[in-house]
């Protein structure tokens, strides 16, 4: 970077940072994460509609504040489990957008060598234990990772991202009970985005607030405006710190809104255009941008972040486009790890 411009930005940032309690670097970091997720998913939507991506995709546009605010508290060695709507969780945990984009293309260079796709992004080095095609499946996995961390004497925490749909499943309740019973270092983050597929939260749950409900399990909980990244950040910080210091599990209910359909191409007969337009006004990315501006972050700083993230996503698309597809026979790799198990292949192909 040319020395002049970088220096200017840095000096401006230092000035602003002194004035605010949520340090501006953190604040800008949150913005950067949200912009990265937004740009990535907008691009994925375009690419999908252009027929470039196989399968189908679920977008979290409008929910970016939740992974951004939560993952800002996580270390690289902390664990995360995610959902079918999981691009944001992986990106916020630090997964390389290029590897993810290549995975969405089904390319050999993808995060999972083309074996998983959009609904199954993994990043073992960052403790990203998988997006998941089965609603709620990641919740016990996170609880188990938390139990292992404790038994192995580590101070790692695990975060399970889940949607409100998962709250209707048995393993959610079993996991809350067990996590509380055994004081596990796990935080359950419920992205209450108003819909489980096409069914509204109110049509599916006998209680209005998940956060309130789980107090019966003895789980510490917060309910926040999930489109307010600062509120998410503070509440998640409290719960992650508690979990890490051995005070047991927490649950964060982040009330947000799914601006896109359940999947790209969803006819969305279950809601009106007006409802979605009203929700656009609460767009978490734009909101946080306005807050940052009002706190004195210069426009040029924000634009620089946006430009960099735009470039990062474009580079990811180029990488994915230029990457080779896997050879068909690669389908038979990666099933098991034990080299002594050479018999596996022949077992199935005898």
């Amino acid at each position, binding site marked *: 970077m040319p020395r002049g411009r970088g220096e200017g930005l840095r000096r401006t940032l230092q000035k602003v940072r002194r004035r605010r309690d949520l340090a501006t670097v953190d604040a800008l970091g949150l913005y950067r994460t949200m912009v990265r997720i937004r740009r990535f998913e907008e691009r994925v939507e375009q690419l999908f509609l252009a027929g470039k991506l196989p399968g189908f995709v679920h977008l979290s546009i409008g929910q970016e504040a939740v992974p951004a605010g939560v993952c800002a508290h996580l270390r690289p060695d902390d664990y995360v489990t995610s959902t079918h709507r999981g691009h944001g969780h992986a990106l916020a945990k630090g997964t390389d957008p290029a590897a993810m984009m290549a995975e969405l293309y089904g390319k050999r260079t993808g995060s999972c060598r083309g074996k998983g796709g959009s609904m199954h992004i993994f990043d073992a080095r960052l403790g990203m234990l*998988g997006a998941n095609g089965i609603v709620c499946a990641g919740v016990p996995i996170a609880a188990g990772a938390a139990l292992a961390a404790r038994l192995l004497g580590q101070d790692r925490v695990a975060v399970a991202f889940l949607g409100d749909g998962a709250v209707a499943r048995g393993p959610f309740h079993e996991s809350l009970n067990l996590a509380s019973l055994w004081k596990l270092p796990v935080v359950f983050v419920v992205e209450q985005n108003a819909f489980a597929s096409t069914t509204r939260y109110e049509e599916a749950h006998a209680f209005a607030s998940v956060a309130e409900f789980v107090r019966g399990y003895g789980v510490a909980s917060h309910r926040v405006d999930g489109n307010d990244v600062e509120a998410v950040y503070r509440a998640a910080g409290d719960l992650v710190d508690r979990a890490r210091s051995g005070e047991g599990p927490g649950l964060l209910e982040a009330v947000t809104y799914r601006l896109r359909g359940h999947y790209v191409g969803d006819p969305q007969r279950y809601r009106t255009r007006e409802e979605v337009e009203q929700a656009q006004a609460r767009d978490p990315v734009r909101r946080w941008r306005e807050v940052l501006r009002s706190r004195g972050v210069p426009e040029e700083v924000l634009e620089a972040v946006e430009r960099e993230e735009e470039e990062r996503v474009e580079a990811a698309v180029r990488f994915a486009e230029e990457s080779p597809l896997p050879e068909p026979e690669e389908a038979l790799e990666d099933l098991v790890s034990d080299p002594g198990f050479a018999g596996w292949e022949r077992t199935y192909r005898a």
Partner: protein
Amino acid sequence: MRELTFAEATREAMEEEMARDPTVFLWGEDIAKQGGVFGQFRGLAERFGLERVRDTPISEATLVGMTLGAALAGARPVFDLHFADFLGIVMDEVANQIAKIRYMSGGQLKVPLVIRAPDGAVRSAGPHHSQSLEAWVTHVPGLAVVAPSTPADAKGLLKAAIRSDDPVLFFEHKALYPRKGPVPDGEYLVPLGKARVAREGKDVTLISYSMTLWKCLEAADRLSTDGVACEVVDLRTLVPLDWDLVLDSVSRTRRAVVAHEAWRFGGFGAEVAATLTERLWDRLLAPVGRVGARGVPIPFSPPLERYVIPQTEDIVAKVREVLGERPRGASAAARLGDGGRQAPGGPQAGRGTGGEGRAPSGD
């Protein structure tokens, strides 16, 4: 050699592996304070504490999901499912998560876990505590499936399963737990994916595993008095399967019967029979015979249970069938010393005539 029960042998395997590797944990219902329904965990909690040997609530689906999470996070958990029948409760975690996670992640993650599943019919446990469900999991790629028949193999295979970096479903027939057998002193492993010849013979190969292996050995004994030499193969591991040993045996004997306690229809034996037929069509002198449970739930009342589960005499009868010595007439039946079950109506009756469904006295 010293003798241990099957339950004691598995307990010893757990104890040795937990002592050797501090990342091995054991979870399940009734295992710590109670020592397991069959005594197979007795003393482990006393030695390793209630954190590592953990009594759990009845939340199998979540506990199996947690077992997976723990395995991904660097532990080597062993989960006791209490009864194999509870696979129905945990099937998403087993089939959609545990079996697939290494593959879906493009090989980034390993899944070193063991699920122990006591299965099979014993003492009228009824339809929800008697099933043999190994075919449910052999059908899902990515799961090792183990079903030992002897105490020595149970110990060596369980130790190998715990050390494996891949997920293992470990089926233990409940009727085997009190059975004694020789167990070597000291450290040994029985590798996954290796079958063994439990008895040598030249006329027909009986292929089995778990409890039914003993019925095959009994059948072989009975048939030997009539001059039929059965080779008996104990598969020990169903996935990965030791096709080399199986194909070698059957290409020598040129006849085979696969026997298991699971339902015959859609059972693991069907896979073995189909592959033998594909691979050894030119060598086989008869269709591969299959013996398995009849197509109803495992009933409660003792005579019903016994009727549904394959018995030694069913294996004997099936062997006779593949030997081409169906009881067509008095000479065949007499030579084979048929106890009558295969030839309803007695030596004079042809197939499908007279006296059907009547077991002669003495059966």
